[in-house]
Structure formats: C-alpha cells, structure tokens
C-alpha cells in the first residue's frame, strides 16, 4: 500500500499493480460507470456546456428598437456584436493591461515562489515550518477582503505607512495596476511556493548525493538539478496564474471604492460586467466568448509550448 500511495508524489511512478488489466466489463460495471459519471455529467452540461452555448447564441443576437423610447427587441444579428468587440478600444486596452500585468506579475510571483521553495528545501534555513505557515497564510484571504485590506494600507489618509503613501500615491492612474499586482502576489506567492516545494520534496535525495560526489555546490545543485525537476510544477502554477490574470475582477472592482483611477473597463471582466449593466447583454456575451476563447487558447498554447521544451 505504502508503495502505491507514495507514487502520487514520486516523479517516477512504480505502480505496484499492472495498471490496465483488461477485465471483461459486466453489465453491473456499466451501470456503475453510469452512476458515477452521470451526476458530474449532468451538472457539467447544465452549468458549463449550456452556458457556453447560450453565450454564443446571445452573442449572435442584436437589439432592435423604434423611436427614442421604443422597447428593445432581440433579433438575429450575425457577427454584429463581434464586429463591435473588435472595434471596442476600451476592451482591447483592458486586455493589453492584463497582459502587461501578467507579463510582469506572473514571473515575479513565480520567481519569488521558486526562491522561497528552494530556500525552504535548502539546509540554510531554520524555522522552516514557521516560514511555510507565515507565507501561506495570505492565501486564506479572499481577493475581495485582500483588496479591502490593501486599499486601506494604500490610502494616503488612512494608511499606517502614511510617510510612504503621502509621497507615493499607489492608487494613482500610473501605479494602481501595480498596486493590484502587489495584492495578487501577496495572496498567491505562498500557495505557489507550496506547490513547488512539495515537488522538490518528491525528488529522491540520492540524486543530490551523486551530484555532491561530483563536487557540485548548493547553487549548482539548485540550478542544474532542482529547478529542471520542478518545471512541471511551475508550468501548472503558470497556467493557473495566466487564467487568473485574465479573470481579474474582484480586486479592481473592490479597489474602485478607494481609487478613481480604475475605470469601469479596467480589466476585461470589468468590461463584461459594465457592458452587461448598460445593459447590453448581447455585446457582453460576445466579450465573454472572446475572453473565454482567448484564455483557453493562451493557456493551451503555454501548456503545449512548455511541454515540448521539457520533453526535448
């Protein structure tokens, strides 16, 4: 038993049992499979597949009305909404903004997480358990509440660090994006650190001993052995970070109470929400579809690109 379960964390799984013994599938088993899969299948259809189809349908409709106060009526409009999406400069500015955000914040966050994980895994540190807990604690703070807390900390008049905030306005138009980046980093570094750290722990120590016999230093071991071996973990965290970045909503929306520099279309999701509230649901649906597609493609490409690199 021990051997089997250990393999969940070991990079080279040595399964105790042959994995696919072709047993004849009986009727009872088929029924079992149905029972096991059906609940998820139904929910997935209802709350994943149908909404996606529905969004696509909505995005192909457009509104018609007559006169200054004529009631709205939905008719088929083809790709009218998508034309709007591509002409909408605010939306693409918001996409550019979160891409810039992601290009800076994701590497910084993952870099820090990797650094902390390596330090935790190195013999240099005392009180590892404490650091692990301290760094992970912010992950328990939901985005909305983290944004409220940091909003107070950034505020020129309420901040305990008013010596700093009265000089540098973190909530100004120039800095507010990075103020948000800081909040996201604060929440998620510890979590990503744990992911990387746990895959470092899964590396058999024999590998290091061999390297040491060859005269490798700690730094070299970290660089040549540890980092390459945790790349899959970093890819996983990278994908989730990219998805998270494109979805930014709670933090900027909450910070709007603290800063007038966050426009109603600051991030793509805010643009969706704002457009839906105009209300222009058809255009908002088109935004949603484009956004979901972009996220899907981006994380898929990232996954494929990095996987190829790793396997080479």
């Amino acid at each position, binding site marked *: 038993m021990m051997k089997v379960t250990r393999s969940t964390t070991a990079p080279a799984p040595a399964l105790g049992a042959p994995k696919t013994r072709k047993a004849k599938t009986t009727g009872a088993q088929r029924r079992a499979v149905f029972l096991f899969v059906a609940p998820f299948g139904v929910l997935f259809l209802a709350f994943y597949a149908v909404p996606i189809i529905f969004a696509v349908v909505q995005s192909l409709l457009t509104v018609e009305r007559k006169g200054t106060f004529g009631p709205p009526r939905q008719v088929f409009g083809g790709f009218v909404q998508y034309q709007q999406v591509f002409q909408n400069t605010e939306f693409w500015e918001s996409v550019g903004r979160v891409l810039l955000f992601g290009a800076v914040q994701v590497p910084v966050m993952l870099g820090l997480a990797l650094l902390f994980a390596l330090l935790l895994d190195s013999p240099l540190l005392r009180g590892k358990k404490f650091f692990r807990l301290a760094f992970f*604690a912010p992950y328990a703070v939901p985005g909305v509440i983290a944004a409220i807390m*940091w909003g107070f900390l950034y505020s020129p008049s309420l901040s305990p660090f008013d010596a700093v905030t009265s000089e540098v306005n973190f909530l100004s138009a120039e800095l507010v994006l990075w103020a948000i980046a800081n909040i996201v980093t604060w929440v998620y570094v510890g979590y990503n650190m744990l992911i990387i750290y746990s895959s470092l722990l899964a590396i058999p120590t024999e590998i290091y001993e061999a390297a040491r016999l060859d005269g490798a230093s700690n730094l070299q071991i970290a660089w040549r052995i540890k980092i390459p071996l945790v790349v899959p973990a970093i890819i996983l965290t990278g994908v989730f970070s990219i998805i998270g970045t494109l979805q930014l909503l709670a933090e900027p929306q909450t910070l709007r109470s603290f800063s007038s520099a966050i426009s109603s279309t600051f991030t793509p999701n805010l643009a969706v929400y704002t457009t839906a509230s105009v209300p222009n649901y058809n255009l908002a649906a088109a935004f949603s579809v484009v956004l979901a597609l972009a996220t899907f493609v981006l994380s898929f490409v990232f996954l494929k690109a990095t996987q190829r690199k790793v396997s080479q």
Partner: protein
Amino acid sequence: MSAATATAAKSASAPGAANPRGPRHSIMSRSAAMLIMGVFTLYFLTPIWWLLVSSTKTGGQITGTAPLWFTLESVPTFLANLGNLFTYSDGVFGRWLLNSALYAGLGALLGTVIAAMCGYALAKYEFRGREAIFNIVLSGVLVPATALALPLFLIFSEVKLTNTLWAVFLPSLVSPFGVYLARIYAAASVPTELLEAARLDGSSEVRTFFTVSTRLMAPALVTIFLFQFVAIWNNFFLPLIMLRDQVLFPVTLGLYAWNSQISQIPELRVLVIVGALVSILPLIGTFLALQRFWSSGLGAGSVK
C-alpha cells in the same frame, strides 16, 4: 500510509543532524537566507497584523493612534466592535457567515463527492467514450469560471431562479479540476486487484467505491475539497451578478457591499475591518491545520 505523511516525514528529516543534503554552509549564506525570509515574513504578515490591531479600535482611533499597536482600551473596543458587527442591520453579518459556510462548505463537500465518483470511473473502468469525456473535462479546466457567470445569469433569469440560494450553490458544484485530480489519485492509489477481490466477495461496485476506494483516496479527497472550497469562497462574479437580497450574500460580497457604502455611512469602515478579520481568522486556522494536504496533493497534480 498516505502520500501526505510520507512527504511530511521526509521534510521533517531534512534539516536533521545527519543531513543528507550537504556539508555545512557559510554564515554568510545562512544569514542571507534568513534575511530574505525575515523581510518577506514582515511583508506577508504585516497586513494581517494591521487588520487585527485596527479591529480593536474605534473609527477615530484608526487614523488617530499608532497604526500597528494596540490602545489601552483595545479589549473593550474590540468586543464593542464585535457586538456592532453582529447586530448591525438585524445581524445580517451572521447570515453572511452562514451563507458562505453553506456555499463553500456544503458546495465543496458535494462537489468533491461528485468529482471523485467521476474521476474514479474514468480511472478504474474501461468504457466507450472514456477518453472523450476526460478530454472534455480537461478543456473545462481551462475555461475560466468567470466567463460563465454572465451566461449563467442569463439562463437563471430565463427560469426565474436568480436571487436564490440555488443560483450560487448549483453552479459551484461543478469542478472539472476536481475530476482531473480525482482521476490521477484514483489511478495511483486504488489497486485494481482490490476491486476484483471486492467483486469476488460480492460487493457491488457502488458499495466498493464508498467503503473501500474512498478510504484509499481520502487524502486526495481532502485536497480536492480544499481546492473547491477556495474556488467557491473566492468566486465573486457569480454572487455579485446573481444575488440582490443581502440576506443571501456570502460574506465576501457582503463586506464588498458595505465597503462601497463607506462614503455615505462612515461608521461602516470599522465594521468592514472587524468583519474582514472575523471572516478570515477561521479560514487561516483551517488552512494551516490542513496544510499538509495542500502540499502533497498539489505536487501530484503537477507531476503527472
């Protein structure tokens, strides 16, 4: 017996006396490492410390007194703030906490069972369409939940179910990532022989799953539960767009609503701060207590 204890044991042995990971290290690099970690400890903990200290102050004291230290009347002020928090607007804050517990707690619990069953079937049974289902689930992982919030809202509008518990609860049950993890864990931790033995004993498939397999998958299930719990707890768009009635809000949306009214009702500032503290302390506690499940489970997700 579990992956979690295996890794935990390993990490405990790492800094031990007979350190297998290398010779002694210079004081320089030791201090550098401690310095980096020390500075970042301040970075991670100061905001939470500030929240704790501020919740023991009155509205005026938040700006008027030393920001990172307590006042002489901290304890009574804190109690008074707590009292206000739970009585303001007919004690709606208590409702919010309950709602969050319901959405995230019960939602994650049910969602985990559902995901585990599906993942288990995908891992341990041969059937037609298995790969297709798994691929659909995988693409589901990459579709952001927030992109679904608006269409879900429009659909729930059609069936007149917005502004109900169900509007937030039901969509939260679906976790493609949970299925993905469950499949990996089930493949690794449930030996096929065991299932065959159970079949020979005449145990039904469903019974075997609930009595034998779930026990073997237990650490993995905790991980899936935690993942989904966080995802639901953090989901802001869905309740924001679905719910109108304050009584149905989860605590995050409730605090957001209060926070956006501070300019009109300044006394809410204190309540927002105390409320934020009250809502995260139990979470931090639980998270830290269950931390070993995070590490072990997450590692597995990335290795495969």
